């Protein structure tokens, strides 16, 4: 593999990692705090992508589409949270997983009904290329990577510096004790749920120009997203970052070497991690309820 090829592959991998990170960090955080596995997040991912598609093709502005997607998804997520999750939180992980799969399916049915089954293309908002180490790469990929870095730093600052962030960290350790201080933990749950939905929608919109938008896009990425969460360890942000980076690179190199391997490799890695640590790289074995 030559240097230009290598550089190109690494950048493609990083862009994938960026999207995986946006999609899985919220899932991991939600599990840590609320002990839910919220599969409806993949609906918000699809909604984010579809809104981006609609606004980009109608109004010609990708960034506006991204924003619309985030707002639409958060509104939808708020409705679902208020109507269903209040009863889900008390019931545990399995219950949330099954019920939210129901929500996801309803959403997919609705998307098929509204936009049909045909995959839709989304125009790349930035068409320029840059030269790097003897290869030319689309600027858009660097923007994606940059955005993920900004989000990661923002999330860290939010969790470490703000009082609500501290309450979230406290809740991840022990929800009852957090509530025992007089904090309305359900409000914090709602906030984290919306944060996760917003990130999922953003991931969907950002991902849209790199793939085609189609009704099953949420289902197609579930396995990878959860492999990342699992490899990193449920509830660990650091783990999510590490495994996003790992899986992004593995898939990118897989594609350049032998395409079918790219989709197999994360699974192999997951099995290897399980052999060594059944709770993922950074997951705590005490994180159960």
């Amino acid at each position, binding site marked *: 593999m030559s240097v230009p090829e290598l550089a190109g592959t690494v950048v493609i991998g990083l862009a994938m990692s960026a999207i995986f990170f946006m999609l899985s960090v919220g899932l991991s955080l939600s599990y840590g705090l609320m002990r839910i596995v919220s599969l409806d997040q993949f609906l918000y991912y699809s909604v984010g992508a579809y809104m981006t598609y609609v606004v980009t093709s109608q109004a010609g502005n990708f960034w506006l589409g991204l924003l619309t997607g985030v707002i639409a998804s958060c509104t939808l997520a708020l409705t679902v949270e208020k109507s269903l999750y209040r009863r889900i939180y008390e019931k545990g992980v399995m219950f949330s997983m099954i019920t939210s799969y129901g929500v996801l399916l309803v959403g997919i049915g609705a998307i098929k009904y509204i936009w049909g089954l045909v995959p839709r293309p989304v125009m790349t908002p930035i068409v320029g290329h840059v030269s790097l180490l003897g290869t030319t790469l689309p600027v858009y990929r660097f923007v994606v990577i940059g955005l993920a870095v900004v989000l990661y730093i923002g999330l860290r600052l939010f969790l470490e510096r703000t*009082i609500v962030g*501290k*309450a979230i*960290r*406290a809740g991840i*350790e*022990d929800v*009852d*004790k*957090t*509530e*025992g*201080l*007089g*904090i*309305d*933990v359900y409000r914090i749950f709602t906030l984290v749920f919306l944060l996760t939905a917003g990130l999922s929608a953003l991931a969907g919109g950002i991902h849209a120009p790199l793939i085609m938008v189609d009704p099953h896009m949420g289902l197609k990425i579930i396995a990878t997203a959860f492999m990342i969460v699992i490899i990193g360890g449920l509830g660990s942000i650091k783990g999510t970052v590490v495994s996003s980076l790992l899986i992004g690179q593995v898939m990118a190199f897989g594609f350049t070497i032998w395409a079918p391997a790219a989709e197999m490799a994360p699974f192999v890695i997951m099995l290897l991690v399980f052999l060594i640590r059944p709770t993922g790289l950074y997951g705590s074995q005490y994180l159960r309820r």
Partner: protein
Amino acid sequence: MATGAALQVNNMNVSYGESRVLFDASLTFPASAVSVIVGRNGAGKTTLLKAIAGFLKPGSGSVVLGGDEITGLRPYQVVRKGLKYIPQDKEVFSDLTVRENLELASYAMKDHDWSKVLRYFPKLQQLMHRKGAYLSGGERQMLMMGRAILGKTHVLLVDEPTEGLAPSIVQDLVAAFKQLASHCTLVLVEQNLAVARELADQLYLMKEGKVVAHLADRAGIESLAFEKDL
């Protein structure tokens, strides 16, 4: 019913699933008095406190705080009404510093004046930047109590505060409780009878999920002995 009661528990029944652990418990805690609950392990003391604080839903019965019925409120609502519960396990948030632990309580209770906390527990001042994971048992107990007295505090429920602590630290805590008693109604669960005798204005004895004795006079409290009565 007595009107001077800061907290009253009426005919409370609590079950974990199928197994019933609290039977018709009725207790009255007068304002500005120190009440101590004693009983062997498994008697249901922790269950009682958790049910009062809203962490367990009682099957039947009611909790009245200063004339307000608080049965069935969520724990944070109970706390905001001024009833604080300090659990038995002495766990503070281990990833958060002492300062952050206090900040959270301040945020919840909208009380940012820590002078009271530092007056009762001056030792916390030097520990501000230490993470919860690196505090000793006594320091954690102090931090938990410090968090609890922020904002309005009418009643403080404390579950086995002296359990597993060195005698000198127990003495510090007893001193702190004596001071606190003039500001709020204290309800302590205590297995250490010496401490119980020293602090109690009245005493409840629990056995197998039932309240079996109520001693409201000093003579009765002084005569309590572990082997004989528990």
